[in-house]
């Protein structure tokens, strides 16, 4: 029996084809059958009225922490995949900093299998760069890729040893996958809990200077240049980091980079009052840095938006600031925040937003999707750009509630998330 959905009369935005017009999209048996105005609905098709809504290639988040195995009290692969679907994401990349870490093919297979069982957003495993994330020797990258890993990273920790990063960038080229790095020189930042500066000084909290991030961004660029490998820089938060990537791209270095929603809309001032919900790594920085990250997103220096969804149990954040873990959940607030604060404030337009949230992540990580061309997988997100809603963390699909955006009123939200032609979530 065939499965058919006609998404009728929406504003179809597909930057992969430069398409932006009111149109219909017909999905048949898990693939995009056709896109065009006035399509006839097949008899057995579900017809979805999309008038006034955005119909876009499914959103992809390349940076998500699902916590399973090992910290299932924070999130599981299933709850994370559902949170992703509720946030309009049709695919997510699971970071390997679990316990045990995802550093061998069996572990990669586990993430893949649990992801499929969740029947929500697609879950792509990312493997570790080093065995046990110890930063010492390469994990079996080839076997992990064969098992389904789409990239490697030791995220959560940087690769402190430049020699190991060089080896990873060289070795990964055989498999055509990016090497993703959390750029941070721990020698400069290990004692820090927030951005270095006046607020940290006043609050008596150790600071992480921009230079801690900048040094590793520049180092990684130099190593990508040396090896010809593909470096993917995670959650870029500094003005000089953005500028360094801009210059590297102009030189033709194979570098891609992310911006996270919180680094686009919040500054270190959110930490005032020791708000642990605003504690993250890299830390929230100054308004000059936020402006630079926005400019980098607008001109394409930062190729994509990734949430760095980092669930933590509520009582772990209910602690003194320096005892609280880093990170916030991001999957279910991203679309609303970005439409309200980034598109709404004119930083980028809707097609550029979709380019940064779907097309580029698919391209950089070699994933299916990121396009509505005929014959491609029917991964589609329907977004209501005018829906006003209030963030209520008590109703998150995610197991965790750690967000600084609780109670914020946003305009724009996903309405329907379709993966391989099946509606996995709708509002």
């Amino acid at each position, binding site marked *: 029996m065939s499965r058919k959905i006609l998404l009728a009369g929406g504003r179809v935005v597909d930057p992969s084809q430069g398409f932006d017009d009111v149109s219909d999209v017909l999905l048949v048996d898990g693939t995009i059958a056709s896109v065009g105005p006035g399509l006839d609905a097949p008899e057995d098709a579900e017809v979805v009225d999309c008038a006034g809504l955005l119909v876009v290639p499914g959103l992809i988040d390349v940076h998500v922490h699902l916590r399973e195995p090992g910290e299932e009290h924070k999130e599981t692969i299933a709850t994370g995949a559902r949170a992703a679907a509720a946030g309009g994401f049709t695919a997510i990349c699971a970071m390997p900093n679990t316990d045990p870490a995802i550093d061998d093919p069996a572990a990669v297979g586990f993430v893949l299998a649990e992801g499929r069982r969740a029947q929500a957003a697609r879950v792509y495993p990312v493997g570790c760069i080093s065995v046990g994330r110890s930063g010492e020797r390469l994990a079996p990258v080839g076997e992990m890729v064969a098992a389904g890993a789409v990239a490697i990273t030791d995220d959560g920790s940087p690769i402190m040893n430049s020699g190991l990063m060089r080896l990873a960038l060289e070795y990964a080229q055989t498999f055509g996958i990016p090497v993703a790095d959390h750029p941070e020189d721990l020698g400069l930042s290990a004692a820090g809990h927030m951005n*270095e*500066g*006046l607020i*940290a*000084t*006043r*609050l*008596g*909290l150790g*600071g992480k*200077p921009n230079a801690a991030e900048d040094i590793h961004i520049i180092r990684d660029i130099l190593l990508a240049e040396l090896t010809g490998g593909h470096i993917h820089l995670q959650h870029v938060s500094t003005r000089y980091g953005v500028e360094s990537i801009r210059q590297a791209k102009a030189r033709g270095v194979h570098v891609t980079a992310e911006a996270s929603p919180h680094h686009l809309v919040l500054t270190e001032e959110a930490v005032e*009052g*020791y708000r642990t919900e605003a504690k993250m790594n890299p830390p929230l920085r100054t308004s000059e840095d936020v402006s630079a990250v926005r400019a980098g997103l607008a001109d394409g220096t930062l190729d994509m938006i990734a949430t760095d969804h980092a669930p933590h149990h509520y*009582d772990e954040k*209910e*602690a*003194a*600031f*320096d*005892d609280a873990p880093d990170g916030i959940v991001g999957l279910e607030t991203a679309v609303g925040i970005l439409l309200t604060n980034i598109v709404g404030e004119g930083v980028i337009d809707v097609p550029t937003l979709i380019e940064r949230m779907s097309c580029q992540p698919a391209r950089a990580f070699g994933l299916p999707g990121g396009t509505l061309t005929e014959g491609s997988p029917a991964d589609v997100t329907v977004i209501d750009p005018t829906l006003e809603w209030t963030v209520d963390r008590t109703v998150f699909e995610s197991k965790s509630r750690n967000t600084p955006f609780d109670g914020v009123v946003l305009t724009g939200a996903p309405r329907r998330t379709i993966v391989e032609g099946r509606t996995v979530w709708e509002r």
Partner: protein
Amino acid sequence: MNPTPTSPVVAPLGKDLVGLEELSAEQITAILDTAEPFKEISERRIKKVPILRGKTIVNLFFEASTRTRISFEFAEKRLSADTVNISASGSSVVKGETLVDTARNLEAMRIDMVVVRHASSGAARFLAERIPSNVINAGDGRHEHPTQGLLDILTIRDHTGRVEGLKVCIVGDILHSRVARSNIYGLVKLGAEVAVCGPPTLLPSAIEELGVRVFSRIEDAIEWADVLNVLRLQLERMKGGYVPSLREYNRIWGVSTPRLDAAPKDILVLHPGPMNRGVEIDSDVADGPHSVILDQVTNGVAVRMAVLYLLAGGQPDSAEAAKAGGEA
């Protein structure tokens, strides 16, 4: 107690004393003024007045302390409060109980006040936001140590007769010092000129933006200052690589008699203790005519009595009367 109708209006301290950053100049002055009548209690043969009779106070020390804890305990007992001391060793804290659980348990025991010291910046505020009792910060991480700041300022005022316009330099490890931050906030609000002096490795980022001048050479600081507040150099700073050796620290930044003798004027020297003699301060300075270090300790009890009295609802200008037998 009711304020007399003619008393000047000063906003009450509120529920807690977390830091001097949140207080106004008038509130700080009110605490210092309230401390004055309390000084005398400690000079009596029977050192006890009934101001806090029936109040239960917990001294919750997650970090080792001798001087501050004892000073608080004397202040509480001389005001007739019932006190309990909880220190990190030997309590459920070492068994892994979280700060929030500790707070809830205290709350469940219906206590009136908590004096808290904790290694994490913000811990006092964290507690204050979660329990209805009055919370007094006895030092949180490198954030604030407000009663120390108050007793330092009171001692300066006692000896110079003023705070406004006075040049006060805080010397040493400013980066890790809650005493430095409380002194800076309090002194700047009261109109003093404030400077800091120490190795640049131990000066926090953007410190000038708090309204202080920065000296890296102790000779320059001494030439400028009326008052030096010399901070303890924690021995672990050497292990952390902030200073190469204690000997070198003493040679470059130590407060010594020859350095003070070279000053153009008489300088008052404070130290919050405990001292490392021969490191940040030489013995002949600590024991010499410039030093008011023991006056600080004496004032500490009076300042803490004043804070307890005010947080319990006492009025600044009724303190004298309260000593005679009233209750807060």
